[in-house]
């Protein structure tokens, strides 16, 4: 297995005692998969992603990527945040190069690799713009290019399209699917958007709330992933099934939290 999430638990110290956010999470991902983790608010899905990124360490359990345990953040695991975290004083080109600059890559190679990925995300014409001149969808594409330039083993996305309007979101869905098919990169994305999860992933993990545990694993078999697929019954069946699961485990969490 390429990504092994092995019995992860996470507790936080709060004023009212220990809070268990994640409990016994086991997830395995193959190279080249597109996996979504879906959960209601309070399911700890963002916390889980932070553990995988190495921004936080689990209370127990271990995460391995290509056999190597995760010890801290590294460019091996690219990440795209919900709030476009671009450097506002740097141009699109400089933003894309920034990871390579931090790693000490020569100026020339930096420029070439960043230009290549800006072309991949379709933003070559905007290389000299500042982030605040771009739309939300474009900013997110820069963030994706900036992560891909470092040639990570896995791309982690934390509700990457959550702040976008519905039309931009849909075109970003098609964009990321196309990108995934071309680059064959492994992607792990977090969302609470059921349609997004079914449209993008080949596997979905459903998390319950408080504490977050894996309640269900769904494999999605869609013949093609064009814009029209959303009208097919098979898509709608997947969506409805996921919606029911999410409602059930989300509600369970609420009851559990009250008790």
């Amino acid at each position: 297995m390429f990504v092994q999430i092995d019995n992860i638990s996470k507790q936080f110290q709060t004023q009212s005692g220990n809070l268990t956010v994640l409990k016994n999470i086991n997830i395995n991902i193959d190279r080249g998969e597109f996996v979504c983790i879906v959960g209601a608010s309070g399911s700890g899905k963002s916390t889980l992603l932070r553990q995988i990124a190495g921004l936080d360490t689990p209370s127990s359990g271990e995460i391995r990527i290509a056999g190597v345990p995760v010890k801290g953040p590294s460019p091996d695991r690219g990440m795209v945040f919900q709030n476009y975290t671009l450097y506002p004083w740097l141009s699109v080109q400089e933003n894309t190069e920034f990871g390579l600059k931090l790693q000490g890559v020569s100026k020339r190679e930096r420029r070439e690799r960043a230009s290549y990925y800006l072309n991949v995300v379709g933003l070559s014409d905007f290389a000299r713009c500042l982030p605040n001149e771009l739309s939300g969808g474009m900013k997110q594409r820069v963030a994706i290019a900036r992560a891909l330039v470092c040639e990570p083993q896995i791309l982690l996305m934390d509700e990457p399209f959550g702040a976008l309007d519905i039309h931009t979101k849909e075109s970003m869905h098609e964009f990321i699917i196309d990108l995934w098919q071309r680059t064959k990169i492994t992607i792990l994305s977090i969302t609470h958007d059921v349609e997004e999860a079914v449209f993008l992933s080949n596997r979905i993990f459903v998390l319950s709330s408080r504490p977050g545990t894996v309640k269900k694993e769904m494999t999605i078999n869609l013949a093609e992933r064009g814009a029209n697929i959303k009208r097919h019954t098979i898509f709608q069946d997947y969506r409805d099934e996921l919606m029911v699961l999410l409602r059930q485990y989300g509600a369970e969490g609420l009851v559990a939290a009250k008790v």
Partner: protein
Amino acid sequence: MQLKSRNNRDRDSLNAENRSSLRPSVFWRLVEDIPQPLNWVLIGISIGLPLILWWGVTTFGSIDAKFLPSPAAVAIAFQRLWSTGELQQDTIASLWRVGVGFFLSALFAIPIGIVMGSFRSIRALLEPLFGLMRYMPAPAFIPLLILYQGIDEAPKVMLIFIGTFFFNALMVMDTVKFVSKDLIEATYILGGNRLQTLLMVIFPHVIPGILDACRINLAAAWQLVIVAELIAATEGLGRRISVAGRFLRTDEIFVGIIVIGTIGLALDLLFQYLIRVFCKWSERN
């Protein structure tokens, strides 16, 4: 049924008569831009009206010119001080003191402020002391400074340093909190270590905040130099006012005060310009 329809009718009439909608306004718009021409007219009134009042009071009133000289008398005094070169000499002396004192203050306060804002440990170490020092009025140190350093340039520069260093450091520290945690974490994920994150992300991010802090504290430095010169100096705008006062040259006092104010405003505008030009990306614009 009867009752219900009456209630409805009452409610309808209430809506129509008593609930007026917000009326549009130009002058009283809340936190919104006003039309450019109106803007310029208001700026003109803001400067012009006090001038006209001043002129009117001195021309038609019966105030002794020893207490309130007319604008014309002040203009003549300005010309006189300018032609002898005294005004330029005084201005340069005051500007030099502010420049050196404030430059040294910023030189130390900016890195210390950034480090205080970035590391909670350093903050806990320095903030209590700085917070206390900030509330000790700098002019209260003048007797000590004269005792330690005499009456040369050193105590004046030192006064400006003491009077602005702690404000500068604490205000720079405060700007660091506007660097989002996500941006710092994104940098770690791109392979940045802590030093790189400090120098290549936090520092550029706070530059507009630093310029703004300097802009505000420069006003304090400019006031302190005048205070220092009022007490002991051989030249400088503060000294000019002090000497003029001794000889009842009210017109020269007015020249001094107006020049001080104008230079202060010019420095403020200069910093605003720097922020606009060099920090196009900043939300402060």
